[in-house]
């Protein structure tokens, strides 16, 4: 299926603009006015890695495909009467009460059929692809590492410092995360328990330029950073708190998320937290032969759902909901057909979850189609490229300009509206201050413009890079207020253009990039 057919089961934005990123209309604007506005610099992204390849079909169940699913995976399928329906077509695993609650409150979305072209079914290569955000084997950096690198090319030399006293990213546990691998170092700092104080012996060292010398400098830097980051993390943990009673202390993911809430509430400026839960490589005993509600996958999904629900509850109690969004990811989904071990083998695309109050809630994308007859080893076809999910989050959540986002990825990025619902108030302010919003930008076809006009005549036109007018859109009287205007750019060659609107004495100008 082509990406063009991408639709939202739950239409939250204008049905006529299902693919347009940043596609809020006036109705959405008024709804979002109540959102508290925070700058992107305070925002936090929490990523939860489901290691091993989560079985998407037993997590988010396409109810309308149930009959055919029964043909292929009856040994492990969730009994239909136990599925938690969240829409008429889509259901959750029965253990996902917590996440269903979030969905019902508009704090959870499912992005369906996420993957990448020519799925690689090796855990290792596929996880490399997901963490690097690139299909190129020679790309050794993580997608967030590239983003951090672009602003901090000398890292780790000179960090932490007065501007960046806190780690860019924290990886919960004893390993740093490949998503944050930069050129010279990894931008993530491993934390197993922020309540522990750290004060390591810090000796002198010299890098003699050899492999050994480079390692010496690396270890020396880690020791220094461990001390300085350790202090700020410990201070944040001491200053912070966690208020939810929903965390299950036996749930390792919940405990890690509790620490994250504690650190955020304690004022740590870390942008990204990465957590990991293993065990999703369910080649066998995914389900229990005698009790389909038992089995390995059941416990894992319950852990994920309970932990996220507790975390979101905590964020609400701490007043931090506007500052945090989260997402899950896994290296691949699993094959449609179950194997003889009550398990499933490595597959292709799968759903991922976004959570938080600022995400575009709902089911994003259609259910996968399950045929009655399948070729061997069939998986779920990819419809949404995971790199576009990353890119959209960078744009929507961290407010990275779209041209900079594009530079982080080798493919032509397609933006989706995923995490921008709290931005409207920010953009409202921008409009009130006299700027205009053009979206999507860069654009593959045409753009919409949101502009705050004074009463009177306004004229809009598009000019090319040399200043020549290539299109005139309007020249008429407008009432005062914010207007959303469609500007057709079809038929224009790829390149840079300038959209110019003159309103009485005022001129608005915005660069627009057309990319095919």
């Amino acid at each position, binding site marked *: 299926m082509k990406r063009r057919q991408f639709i939202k089961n739950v239409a939250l934005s204008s049905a006529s603009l299902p693919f347009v990123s940043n596609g809020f209309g006036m109705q959405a604007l008024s709804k979002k006015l109540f959102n508290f506005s925070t700058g992107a610099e305070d925002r936090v992204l929490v990523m939860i890695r489901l290691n091993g390849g989560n079985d998407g079909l037993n997590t988010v169940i396409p109810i309308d495909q149930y009959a055919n699913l029964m043909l292929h995976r009856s040994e492990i399928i969730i009994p239909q009467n136990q599925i938690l329906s969240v829409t008429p077509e889509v259901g959750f695993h029965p253990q996902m009460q917590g996440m269903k609650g979030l969905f019902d409150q508009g704090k959870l979305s499912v992005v369906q059929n996420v993957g990448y072209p020519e799925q690689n079914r090796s855990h290792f290569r596929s996880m490399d692809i997901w963490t690097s955000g690139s299909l190129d084997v020679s790309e050794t950096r993580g997608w967030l590492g590239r983003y951090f690198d672009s602003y901090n090319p000398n890292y780790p030399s000179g960090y932490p410092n007065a501007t960046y006293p806190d780690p860019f990213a924290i990886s919960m546990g004893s390993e740093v995360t490949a998503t944050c691998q930069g050129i010279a170092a*990894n931008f993530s700092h491993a934390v197993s328990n922020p309540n522990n104080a750290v004060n390591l012996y810090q000796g002198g060292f010299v890098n003699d330029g050899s492999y050994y010398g480079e*390692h*010496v400098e690396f*270890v*020396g830097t880690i020791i220094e950073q461990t001390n300085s980051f350790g202090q700020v993390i410990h201070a944040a943990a001491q200053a912070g708190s966690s208020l939810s009673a929903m965390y299950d202390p036996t749930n390792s993911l919940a405990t890690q998320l509790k620490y994250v809430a504690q650190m955020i509430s304690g004022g740590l400026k870390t942008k990204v937290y990465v957590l990991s839960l293993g065990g999703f490589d369910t080649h066998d005993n995914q389900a229990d032969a005698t009790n389909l509600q038992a089995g390995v996958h059941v416990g894992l999904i319950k852990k994920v759902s309970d932990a996220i629900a507790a975390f979101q509850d905590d964020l609400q109690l701490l007043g931090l909901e506007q500052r945090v969004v989260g997402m899950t990811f896994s290296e691949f989904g699993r094959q449609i057909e179950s*194997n*003889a071990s009550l398990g499933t083998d*490595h597959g292709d695309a799968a759903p991922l979850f976004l959570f938080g109050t600022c995400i575009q809630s709902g089911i994003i994308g259609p259910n996968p189609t399950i045929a009655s007859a399948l070729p061997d080893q069939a998986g779920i076809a990819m419809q949404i490229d995971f790199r576009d999910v990353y890119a959209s989050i960078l744009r929507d959540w961290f407010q990275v300009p779209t041209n900079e986002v594009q530079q982080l990825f080798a493919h032509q990025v397609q933006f989706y509206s995923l995490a921008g619902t709290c931005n409207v108030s920010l953009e409202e302010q921008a409009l009130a201050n006299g700027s205009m919003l053009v979206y999507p930008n860069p654009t593959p076809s045409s753009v919409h413009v949101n502009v705050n006009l004074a009463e009177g005549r306004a004229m809009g036109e598009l000019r090319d890079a040399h200043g020549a007018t290539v299109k005139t859109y309007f020249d008429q009287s407008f009432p005062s207020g914010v207007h959303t205007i469609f500007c057709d750019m079809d038929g224009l060659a790829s390149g840079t253009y300038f959209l110019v609107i003159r309103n009485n004495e005022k001129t608005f100008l915005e660069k627009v990039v057309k990319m095919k």
Partner: protein
Amino acid sequence: MSLTPYTGAWTRSEAAHLLRRTLFGPTHQQISSIANMSMNDAVNQLLTIASVNPPLAYDAGETMVPQGQTWINALYPSNPNSNQLCEMARVKSLTAWLMQNMNYQGMDISQKMFFFWHNHFGAAFSSDARATYTYLELLRTSGLGNVKQLVKDVTLDPAMLLFLNGNTNSVQHPNENYSRELLELFTIGKGDQIAAGDYSNYTELDVASGSKILSGYVVQGIRSSTLTAAQTLFLNPLHDTSAKTLSYHFGNATVANAGAQEYANYIDIIFQQPQVATFICTELYRFFVNYDLTNDVETNIIPALAQTMIANNYDILPVLQELFTSQHFYDVALLGSIIRSPLETVFSMLNSTETQINVNLATDYNIYLNIYYAAANMGLDFINPASVAGWEAFYLSPSFSRLWINSTTIKFRFDLATGLFVFGIPINGYTLKVDTIPFLNNLSLPSSADAVIDDICELFIAKPVDVATHDDLVNILTNNLPNFEWTLQYNEYLNNPNNPTFVDPVRYRVQLVLDRVFKMPQYQMI
């Protein structure tokens, strides 16, 4: 093509480098002994596999054999609860025993090669400790043997069949888990994806055909109260008898039905591809020499090793012989190019200080379990490899062995040093603390502060330290007094070897020096 042999001087420096890479922490005497041999004799001595005694029952959960006897061929209790407790007791015994073997290593490469193969195959412990033991012993005893034979043996090993679901791979329900890893990780390796389902060296067709070829095996006897070992059985009705076609990477070969022999025919076909030797030799190079495959290494070193491997029909010993006697291996640019794994960290602290645990069976095993957990806390849970690909530090670009070091694990490395050398680690009423007196007495000139520090640096630091670092360490040893005070103190201890007034200060100063050394960035490399 072959590697240029090393013809430079054979000194303590080369000997120490060779031992740092092939042992888990050499002693001062071992370096002396190797330095006094010829290089060829030294390498030949190292390239042997020692024998070990089997693990022993020591925990109360072991109800089938008496304490002090081995359980490796013992039945399990039939009562499910006792059966579970018995398995837990055996896993603890096995785990402790693995650490004991590393602590009691001889002057040979056995334990490092065992680690290499364990990382290569990446199987976590099975649900039957006897099967886990048998599998791990297969890897250890085959350490210097034939790669092709080892892959065949591992393929039918009960623990591996359980780990990668070979035991449920049947004609009715193919399970490709083992078939995929056999190609991707165990033999030919995965190259770039050059087309849909084509990974340069094999395709998805080969994965699917492989699972058919390997179908028909089941495992019986797991935690059995009637069978003394887990066994692999071939059941023809479960085997796919069709003719299987391989991709163009294997010359479109057809693998005819050959029942229980078919797996071996298939593995023979895989090993006809020279890429297998390149893949294994690259892994050996990264494990023993350096992570960085420079142009020179890819053009001259790896192909030469691979050629030697093929010329010897995949015997591993000639390859390592060539590597460890080569000019390249002793290139000073490669000294200290590998960051210590957690095992190399904890066992250098113990082995290089000549610390072998020997209290009583139960205490020893409990101590070894704690050593095991120490390594696990530093990121290496030995019987649970991070994944079937092994630990990322051995394969994940660009950081490789640097992945062992982060803010959490470096803190644990430091805490471990302080625990072992300063405060002691309490374990079930016993305090594990390294006695540095025997270690000191075996150094070249214990009465000389300079000589003591030189010996310690040679043992623990891969390259010579600068003068300032040397002097800092001397000052810790002498407590900032003139060096002759250390000589006096040491001689007074020699005259009063049982008087704590003279023994304790000497022991303590050396403990402080070692504690410092283990916290220097320079220590973290081999």
